[in-house]
């Protein structure tokens, strides 16, 4: 069965969630583009949007409408071609409106798993819990045709485990979108042992259609993205103990966040990133990964404590950042959580932040902000010059940053050595495209 045939009936599980809604948007858009091609006239297209939470399905439809309009606005050049024969549609606005109408009629929101019965492709983006995933996939294996293909968005659970326990016989592949799926270019493609060649090909072809960068990873828990992120986060947490000999807890959090963002010229500091992903999600990924890496300690007492105190981060339905390690105003950190006091301490309160800044010093003068380098054609040369000056800098901040950089590189190299990634380029590709880093962890800066 070709990808185009499969695209006539698709199901997204966990469609109202953060990842599911983005995946649903991409599929809704692609299916509607297919539907409009002359050769597909008269064919029925169904996108089954399934979520156990029926209340959230309404929000999903609203999200899809708003976002699909934005996508259509960007794709207007192609859409005018697709509607060329429609003499009644003259203005861009009329064409976009028609596209949205055509997209909407294919949407089938439902809280019932049975509605995935006729799907030829199933995208699974439910809770990151192996047992729950296995349970749902087992049911679908009974419900769906025997040639239905399954794409799981798990970011850490080995696909082989899901395949075996749900009895899918090679009809499942890891298809790991990054958050938010509609924006992030990266999809990690994780092929478990015994995966059907057709499934792999379909996944690659779909990736091209969705204009994604597909990076293959091997089926080892955490894959490349979380394989790096979890260990990177744990490194920052381990540094807190060192810092706390001279600094307070909130100062240490603030310092490591600033080191990882400013000094390393990353889009976000490490604790901000953990908040973005969700402190509880971070914890659950660690738990998933730990059994597969018995020689490593993939655990953090601090993370456990934050989760116990229900300081979880994550995002509100409108995409704004919830409070976690930091308290946020307009998505910018304004205060740090102090677990002793169970309260946030403002950046403005007292002089703790000033002292922390004085202690680490400033990055060298060759420093350029991440957002200014993003589209700079001289980016590589500027980064190289910056890190070379950082390396010769004696300040405490510079030394912390260089050791951070070294650890990040070590993690990247280990992912290759242990066969998680096929190459250092793949590791770098994931960090560049999935995390918006300006340089890969495996670099010559350190």
């Amino acid at each position: 069965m070709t990808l185009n045939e499969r695209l006539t009936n698709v199901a997204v599980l966990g469609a109202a969630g953060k990842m599911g809604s983005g995946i649903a948007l991409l599929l809704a858009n692609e299916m509607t583009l297919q539907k409009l091609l002359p050769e597909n006239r008269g064919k029925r297209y169904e996108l089954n949007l399934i979520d156990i939470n029926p209340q959230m399905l309404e929000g999903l439809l609203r999200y899809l409408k708003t976002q699909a309009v934005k996508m259509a606005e960007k794709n207007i050049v192609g859409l005018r071609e697709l509607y060329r024969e429609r003499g009644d549609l003259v203005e861009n606005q009329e064409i976009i409106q028609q596209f949205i109408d055509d997209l909407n009629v294919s949407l089938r929101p439902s809280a019932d798993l049975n509605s995935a019965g006729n799907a030829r492709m199933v995208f699974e983006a439910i809770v990151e819990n192996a047992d729950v995933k296995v349970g749902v996939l087992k049911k679908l294996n009974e419900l769906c045709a025997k040639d239905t293909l399954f794409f799981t968005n798990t970011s850490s659970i080995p696909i082989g485990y899901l395949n075996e326990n749900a009895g899918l016989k090679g009809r499942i592949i890891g298809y790991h979108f990054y958050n938010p799926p509609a924006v992030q270019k990266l999809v990690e493609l994780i092929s478990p042992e015994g995966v059907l060649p057709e499934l792999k090909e379909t996944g690659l072809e779909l990736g091209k259609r969705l204009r994604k960068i597909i990076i293959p990873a091997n089926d080892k828990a955490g894959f490349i993205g979380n394989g790096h992120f979890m260990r990177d986060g744990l490194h920052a947490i381990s540094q807190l103990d060192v810092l706390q000999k001279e600094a307070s807890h909130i100062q240490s959090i603030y310092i490591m966040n600033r080191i990882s963002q400013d000094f390393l010229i990353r889009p976000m500091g490490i604790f901000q990133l953990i908040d973005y992903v969700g402190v509880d999600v971070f914890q659950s990924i660690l738990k998933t990964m730990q059994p597969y890496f018995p020689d490593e300690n993939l655990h953090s007492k601090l993370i456990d404590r934050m989760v116990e105190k229900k300081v979880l981060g994550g995002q509100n339905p409108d995409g704004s950042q919830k409070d976690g390690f930091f308290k946020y105003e307009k998505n910018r950190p304004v205060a740090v959580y102090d677990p002793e006091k169970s309260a946030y301490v403002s950046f403005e309160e007292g002089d703790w932040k000033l002292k922390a800044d004085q202690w680490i010093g400033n990055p060298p003068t060759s420093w350029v902000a991440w957002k200014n380098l993003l589209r700079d054609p001289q980016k590589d040369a500027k980064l190289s010059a910056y890190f070379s000056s950082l390396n010769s800098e004696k300040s405490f901040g510079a030394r912390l940053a260089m050791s951070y950089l070294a650890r990040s590189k070590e993690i990247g190299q280990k992912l290759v050595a242990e066969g998680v990634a096929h190459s250092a380029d793949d590791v770098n590709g994931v960090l560049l495209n999935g995390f918006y880093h300006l340089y890969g962890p495996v670099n010559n800066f350190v």
Partner: protein
Amino acid sequence: MKQMSKPVYLTAGYNTLFLGSGRNEFHPKKPRPGIGHYITEAGKGALEQIKDPQQIDEGVISNFMAARFNRQGNLAAFIPAIHPALLYKPCSRVEGACGSGGLGVFSAVKSVLSGTADSVLAIGVEVQNSVKAVYGADFLAGAGYYEGERKNGHAHFFPDKFSARAGACFAKYGQEPVRTAMARWYEQAIMNARRNPKAQEYHNTTGDLFAVGMTPPNPRVFVEHLNVFDCSKVTDGASAVIAASAEGLKKLGLTPADAVEVVGYGIAVDDITRPPEDQTRLATTQKAVQKAYRVSGLGPDDIGVLELHDCFTITALLAIEAAGFVKEGEASAFIAEGNSHFDGLLPTNATGGLIGFGHPTGGTGVRQAVDLWQQLTGKAGDCQVAIKSAKPYAMMINMGGNDKTVAVFIFRRAQA
């Protein structure tokens, strides 16, 4: 066109800030001033430079598409809202797409020439950030032959029209020199805008502007031969200037030293339903310029400072050729050699032009007149170019649609 039957002067010019993406104070989701605000600010800006607003005999307002961008018609009636002294004065609105401003100045000059007014307040305005560019493209397509061309036209209707011109120039003169000159033009526009606090690109801090200007076009999301930097942006803004007779200047409490004299004008309008015969020439612009040369008895060698209508970078190249500053096909070299620079042989668009200052479509022609008035009277501040005594004349070329409605003026500093 006939010779000037008596001297007509322009004076008391004023430009508002030109707002749109690129300005730090611009945010698409934040509220912004409406069209009435711009008209009033520009009008007051002019009136504050004269002794007595009661002495203004008439008003004219240039605007392209307020009916769609702002759902507002009857713009002439916004003129009396500027100042009570203007209540019940004769006012009218003129429209010629992006050439509206030039037609407005023409209308004001004509009233003075005809003797029905001694002084006319001319305002040009457009407020376009009311809709996203993708929807504004349809409104702007009204500057073309909508009934005949919109349906089969490109999503980005006008960029595509000028992309076709760029493509034709690439084919005729070679892509490399033309493409390079277009990027150089972008670089020059932004560099000039950085001297102009009211320009849309005033806050632009891009390092290598030429490299940005060379960004390869992406026809999947835009057009074949132009990148977005080749295009003027979506702008909100207004300008005002006063046209007056010698008598009028006196009544306004001004002297010729405060004014420029209109020494030539040329208006040419082509059939909107007819596609351009030659994509590599601006035939209507050429006609209008030639008329202005005839009226003034001047030629390209007399022009010391130029304002041309660079709605797209390629248009700048073609306008330089159409105005006779170089032969056809030689504009690329002219630009590459720096002749149009701020301190070059023929300083052009010294305040940034449509690409750098911004392009509030129906207001642009008035803005060009204001800027040349400032240049010739030494009021251009950081944007002031040197006016050489051998070349004391300034020219503006204002174009509506795809070289359809063109207004050209030649000014010199008024003689005492």
